[in-house]
């Protein structure tokens, strides 16, 4: 019996971690900053490839993963400076620009690195409960997802940078008039977003096949989680991931992956119909 209970928790944790880790970066870039970043998946791929490259050079996995996230973050700052900065007032054009970037990056990776890279293998470790065996690393992923949420809360709610960043996103002109260096705030926020995308790729790299288009498998989940969450990243994304994970896990377990995926997307459509502003609109109103 306890095995069944644990397995339900494990499956929930697994889907939840996937949704949070793939959506966290996008929640900042799209949810807060309003940039429709179609290259989100490519930042995830970047994190995965850097991790694998470093591990093959002999760097320990955990350090490689941190370095990969940092790399993706720095590339993000560069991309913000070169491309995204020009599109803050034209969100639909930012969609096109970042989509173009995504095409260029996947095709360049294909030409430079090749069509497939050998995986590095998941860190050893599994445990058995009842008749089931579980991978320890999947629980590490869950722990990382929770840590990312806590980290975001601290950065954006408990630091001076967070206050200024939120002020900038709400009213850039006013924030600037009050002395905030909004250009730098935008760049750093975008960098944090892409760094989290890189972290997602870095964490999932050992468990997946590495190909240049691998980011695409994360993109649908990340966009629906952010959209369901609504404008308030901190109040929206986590409950959105909990809700979608519950729906998907239940359907996956009872009816298989096809129904699980269909069910999740149907739920997304229904939620957007009823709450066009996302879950956070309800939560924020309650809070007031």
């Amino acid at each position, binding site marked *: 019996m306890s095995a069944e209970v644990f*397995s339900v928790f*494990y*499956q929930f944790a*697994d*889907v939840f971690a*996937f949704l949070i880790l793939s959506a966290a970066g996008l929640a900042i870039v799209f949810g807060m900053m309003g940039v429709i970043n179609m290259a989100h998946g490519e930042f995830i791929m970047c994190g995965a490839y850097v991790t694998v490259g470093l591990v093959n050079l002999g760097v320990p996995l955990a350090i490689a993963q941190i370095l990969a996230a940092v790399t993706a973050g720095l590339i993000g700052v560069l991309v913000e400076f070169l491309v995204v900065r020009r599109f803050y007032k034209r969100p639909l054009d930012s969609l096109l620009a970042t989509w173009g970037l995504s095409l260029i990056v*996947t*095709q360049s990776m*294909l030409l430079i690195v*090749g*069509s*497939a*890279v*050998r*995986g*590095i*293998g*998941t860190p050893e*470790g*599994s445990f*058995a409960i009842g*008749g*089931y*065996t*579980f*991978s320890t*690393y*999947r629980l590490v992923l869950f722990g990382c997802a929770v840590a990312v949420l806590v980290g975001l809360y601290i950065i954006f709610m408990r630091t001076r940078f967070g206050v200024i960043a939120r002020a900038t996103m709400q009213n850039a002109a006013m924030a600037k008039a009050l002395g905030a260096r909004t250009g730098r705030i935008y760049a750093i926020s975008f960098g944090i977003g892409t760094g989290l995308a890189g972290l997602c790729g870095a964490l999932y790299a*050992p*468990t*997946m*096949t590495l*190909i*240049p*288009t*691998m980011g*695409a*498998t994360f993109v649908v989940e990340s966009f629906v989680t952010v959209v369901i969450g609504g404008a308030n990243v901190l109040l929206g994304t986590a409950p959105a991931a909990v809700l979608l994970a519950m729906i998907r*896990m239940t359907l*996956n*377990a009872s009816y*298989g*992956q*096809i129904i*699980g*995926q269909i069910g999740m997307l149907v739920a997304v459509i229904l939620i957007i119909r009823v709450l066009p502003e996302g879950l956070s609109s309800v939560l924020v109103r309650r809070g007031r």
Partner: protein
Amino acid sequence: MSSRRKLRMVLLGAMLGAAASTSLAQAAEPPLKVGLLEDVSGDLAFMGMPKLHGSQLAVEEINKSGGILGRQIELIHLDPQGDNARYQEFGRRLLNRDKVDVLIGGITSASREALRPIVNRTSTPYFYTNQYEGGVCDASMISMGAVPEQQFSTLIPWMVEKFGKKVYVIAADYNFGQISAEWNRKIIKDLGGQVVGEEFIPLGVSQFAQTIQNIQKAKPDWLLTINVGAAQDSFFEQAAAANLNLPMGSSIKVMLGFEHKRFKPPALNNMHATANWFEEIDTPEATEFKKRWRAKFPDELYINDMGYNAYNALYMYKSLVEKAKSIKLEDMRKVIATGDACIDAPEGKVCIDPKSQHTSHRMRLISVGPKHEVKVEKDYGTIQPYWLGEIGCDLTKKNDKDQYTPSHLPKKS
């Protein structure tokens, strides 16, 4: 997008121009145009790349040794990027505008079924070079890869005998996975075994924690893994991490997707497959072939069976044209009808079956060990593609243009 396409057309034009001028110098007759549709970008690029390379190698060899009926071959390759709509668009372009003499290619069964109606409107021969779920009875199509009676009718009884009667199936959710699973149900039933679970996975899904648990709940003796594409292949890594540790069988793993080269050992440990080609074959003919391939493409990740079949397709085409002394499909089919359409391939002699236009193959059952070493467990010798003929497909008499499965058989007339 449009500028990218324009650039590609300019490049293509330049290449065609160059090819045309060199071949004009060599031969008075215009070259034979071979249209090739293979994915070298997109999700299946890692499998499609060897197909392009195999075709290029064969074209180079044939051109060097004098071409086909004295005519050089001009290879026109377009990259549909794994998109079935592009397969149709590019197929039309090759058939109607470039007026190719033969069309080759397609990776997934979905892309083949997207192309077939377009090919059927022309009188151009079409070579499909993958192993697949079988059953296509179509006079325009010549199939070079292995089919279920060569792969499943060998593998499944062997797995049942060695590991047990209870099987769990993980299959990609499109025509290939669905029809392959149907084949498994039929064969398992005939053997008195039991399918204890069947799970169809949407393409692009990469997370399998729940699937792994469903498998453990069903307690099968072995797994049939016919999951497709890079995302779904993540199953192996995740199953190994969860210590699932079950024997596995497949019609597409190892020799086609070279998962044993892409994943860190022991993720593919205890995988079994039946194949007409895998790079580890070490007969003298195969070794010689691999040497030529590696000389031209030293960085090839793996010479997979699709790439090998694509190479054979051009030699089969050459043989058919030279025996028929014609490039017309109807004349080539007269050669096929004699049962004499054979070539000496690196695996040994392979022939086209007149009734179904599918190819006979020397089949071997291979297994993967804990260090991902590949071992031949059993050599079945040459197996004919007999199933379509048995159920009543006879292309020498009637062109059905249909795909049959164990539950969709031809109407008795």
